[in-house]
């Protein structure tokens, strides 16, 4: 292992008034699936992030060239950049409150050490179970992966701190062809350990749903009662709310939530928490990317905006405490971002929501939700798979249409029911939501 203390001291001796090192060791093993396990790979990369400040001038250099010469070059580059960077009047210092929250269950040794061959069982169960969902269903594309992320943080204030997290995931898309018509469906699962993955459940579901979408038709433009399935809510939430609650975007004038603290912005059925220190949620970790202990931060409490998410830069600028939301890659400065957005489940079942819908859609999957505009609050999501509901009954499927509307209307005045079907993926967790009178563009 590299001598990080020595590197830090070198930076200080080269003229840095503050310095910070962020070393990440990543390991990823993955199996690519078609109808069989088609490819496998193992990647190991160690990356070093270097940040220095000379007065109020800050520079970041990241390097994966960890030879002595490579590190040397990176250090001099960092100093050279800082020397020519105009001072940032808002700069106070790197994070000085260095600490961590001990978390159990975010790291699984078996997953960290798993080889490609260890994942074969999961992949085969996943592939084989597709036919159980529907006998003519075939898997088309998928993957089984494990990843390990180990971080060492050290700055001129304190450290080193060490943390490690693992994740394991699987994905499969299946297809059914009947009389020249094609139905497809894809689904995923993510856990901390590959032993907790549920390949059979996912495989059976995609097989059976792919069959449902063989006869999918085109949607008519109109206003619908829309149930967003939990997967779709998970896709939308980080896109719309993540940037909007970032203190950086608030301070820089690009969020619709400026000046809305303690104001009701969503329905009182909605409570959203950043689960940075909740080990039952994925994305949790013991400290953030600048050595600040993570928290479980209530962002929206029964519809009322309680706080923005801070890293040390934005917190110092306002004279408040960081919420432990500094997120960075090795080559960029941290910015405040959610660790894991958790929308608390309500008490309605999916069946009840369907029963309550007159002219409705149960939207199972969308694409392009990331094209939505978090600054104006305008949501766009293109439906790829939805069930059509008439008078409380599922009557068919559709495979296109664009949901568009204001996020802060959809999850406020238009929101009717919050599901109890909590689903947890990596960046977010949420139940299904039902909304009234949502405009959907189709034919």
């Amino acid at each position, binding site marked *: 292992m590299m001598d990080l203390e020595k590197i830090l001291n070198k930076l200080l001796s080269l003229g840095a008034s503050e310095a910070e090192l962020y070393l990440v060791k990543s390991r990823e093993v993955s199996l690519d699936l078609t109808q069989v396990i088609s490819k496998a790979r193992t990647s190991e990369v160690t990356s070093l992030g270097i940040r220095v400040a000379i007065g109020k001038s800050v520079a970041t250099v990241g390097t994966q060239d960890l030879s002595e010469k*490579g590190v040397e070059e990176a250090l001099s580059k960092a100093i050279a950049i800082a020397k020519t960077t105009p001072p940032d009047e808002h700069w106070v210092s790197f994070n000085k409150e260095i600490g961590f929250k001990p978390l159990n269950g975010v790291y699984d040794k078996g997953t960290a050490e798993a080889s490609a061959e260890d994942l074969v069982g999961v992949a085969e169960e996943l592939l084989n179970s597709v036919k159980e969902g529907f006998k003519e269903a075939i898997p088309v594309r998928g993957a089984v992966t494990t990843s390990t992320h180990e971080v060492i943080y050290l700055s001129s204030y304190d450290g080193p701190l060490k943390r490690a997290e693992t994740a394991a995931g699987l994905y499969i898309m299946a297809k059914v062809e009947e009389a020249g018509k094609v139905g497809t469906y894809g689904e995923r699962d993510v856990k901390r350990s590959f032993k907790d993955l549920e390949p059979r459940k996912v495989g059976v579901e995609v097989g059976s749903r792919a069959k449902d979408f063989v006869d999918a038709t085109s949607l008519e433009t109109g206003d619908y009662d829309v149930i967003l399935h939990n997967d779709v809510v998970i896709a939308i939430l980080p896109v719309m709310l993540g940037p909007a609650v970032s203190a950086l975007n608030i301070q820089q004038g690009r969020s619709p939530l400026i000046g809305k603290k303690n104001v009701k912005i969503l329905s009182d059925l909605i409570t959203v928490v950043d689960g940075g220190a909740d080990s039952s949620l994925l994305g949790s970790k013991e400290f953030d990317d600048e050595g600040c202990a993570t928290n479980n931060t209530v962002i929206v409490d029964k519809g009322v905006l309680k706080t923005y998410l801070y890293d040390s830069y934005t917190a110092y600028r306002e004279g408040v405490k960081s919420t432990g939301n500094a997120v960075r890659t090795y080559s960029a400065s941290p910015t405040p971002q959610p660790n894991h957005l958790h929308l608390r489940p309500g008490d309605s079942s999916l069946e009840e929501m369907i029963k309550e819908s007159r002219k409705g859609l149960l939207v199972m999957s969308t694409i392009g939700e990331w094209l939505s505009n978090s600054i104006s609050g305008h949501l766009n999501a293109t439906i790829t798979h939805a069930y059509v509901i008439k008078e409380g009954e599922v009557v068919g499927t559709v495979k296109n249409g664009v949901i568009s509307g204001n996020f802060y209307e959809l999850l406020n005045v238009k929101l009717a029911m919050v599901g109890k079907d909590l689903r947890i993926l990596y960046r977010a967790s949420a139940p299904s939501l039902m909304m009234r009178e949502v405009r959907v563009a189709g034919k």
Partner: protein
Amino acid sequence: MLELINKALKKAEILGCSYAEVRFQRYSYELLMADNKILKEHSRTFRAGVGVRVLYNGRLGFASTNDLTLESLERAVSQAISSAKASKEVVELNILNGRKGRFHAQFKIDVDDVSEEDKVSVVLEANKAGLEVEGVKSSVTRLGIQKDFRYVATSDGSELEYTSTLLGLSQLSIAYEAGRMERVSNQESYVAGWEFIKNRNWSEFASEVSKLARETVKAHLPPSGRLTAVADPEMVGLILHEAFGHASEGDLVASGASILKGRLGETIASHQVSIVDDGLVEGGYYVPFDDEGNIKEKTVVVDKGVLKGFLTNKETAKKLNLPVSGNGRAQDFVNPPIVRQTNFYMLPGDWGVEELIREVKFGIYLVGRGSFGGQVHTGAGTFTFSAGPSRLIRNGELAEVVRGVVVSGSILETLKNVMGVGKDLRVRTSVFGRCGKDGQMVRVGDGGPHVLIKDVIIGGG
């Protein structure tokens, strides 16, 4: 380094691999970002490492390392073999005659000879100009500079290397009016040297983006539903890349995930439509060869509406019984090559741009500038993408600006609905954006002429 690579190749051979490729990459990325007159980020990334892919017992395996010692490279070879053992699919590769060559993208002023001060001043000045437009609350300016060196050696005798520099500037402006906010962004990138930055007035560029944001915040949403559209070259590039380019990727075709499977020789688009994938084109990204060591030549995918070819690498070429088109690309040394587009664009036709617009009684002029990108579901055949601030067309003339335009549709329907193709052509790339597939991001180029399309689904917002 080259000696180590040859030793790794030898090692693979000794351990019984019937094919091996070893890639070395050295990469740097510099980013300067000014946010409301403060240089908020000045960062530099250096990467160097080796990726090893082997065919062992008829199965593919891959491993990578950035520890550049012989011991570590040999370990990567063993890990690649272990990965191959986990794979169940027996594949054959279309092995070619090895090609040797060195390629260097042209430039006049080496970016490494430019002072940090000069880079800082370009970004700060443009950023300031962006903020000076009335009603603009937030101005974010980025300068990106990428240098990439790639070397590929394969057991079938290829030894290829290239160097390229890609650089560009982007501006994001957010305008505010009566409680409403709107963002508009634009970027210009080029494979060149510092002369590309030096010879242009970037303050004017940033200012124009801000003025457009100012105009857009006052604009209305477009009507939702089906409209006739004239798409500009950037929009055409995006539609093609998302809606058709991905579906023409050989791996998706072979696995049945593309709706183009089994349709070679069929008429799948209007007869006015011809589409190519080209590794070396003015304005595009620089891909003289791919990461499997195949030379990238111009691949005709659609000729006058007829599907003529797919994009392939060594593996999918064999599966589909097609030539290797040189599209086996990897994000970096950490990832194995997969089938990717290079510069995917529509060839020009014979309509004047004004002629196209004159054809439309009521419709929309879709502008790519300011788009935030798009996505496609190749299996379901649906795509979606955002357009930048666009204009309605009324009685054959451009009318008011509309904001928040989102276009979606079915891939084949849209290409069949092409009613006219302009005689202009523009291909673009970006040092800020990349295209994602299977967790890998690569730089691409896209474009085309102006195109008239009927029945495009527009979602306002």
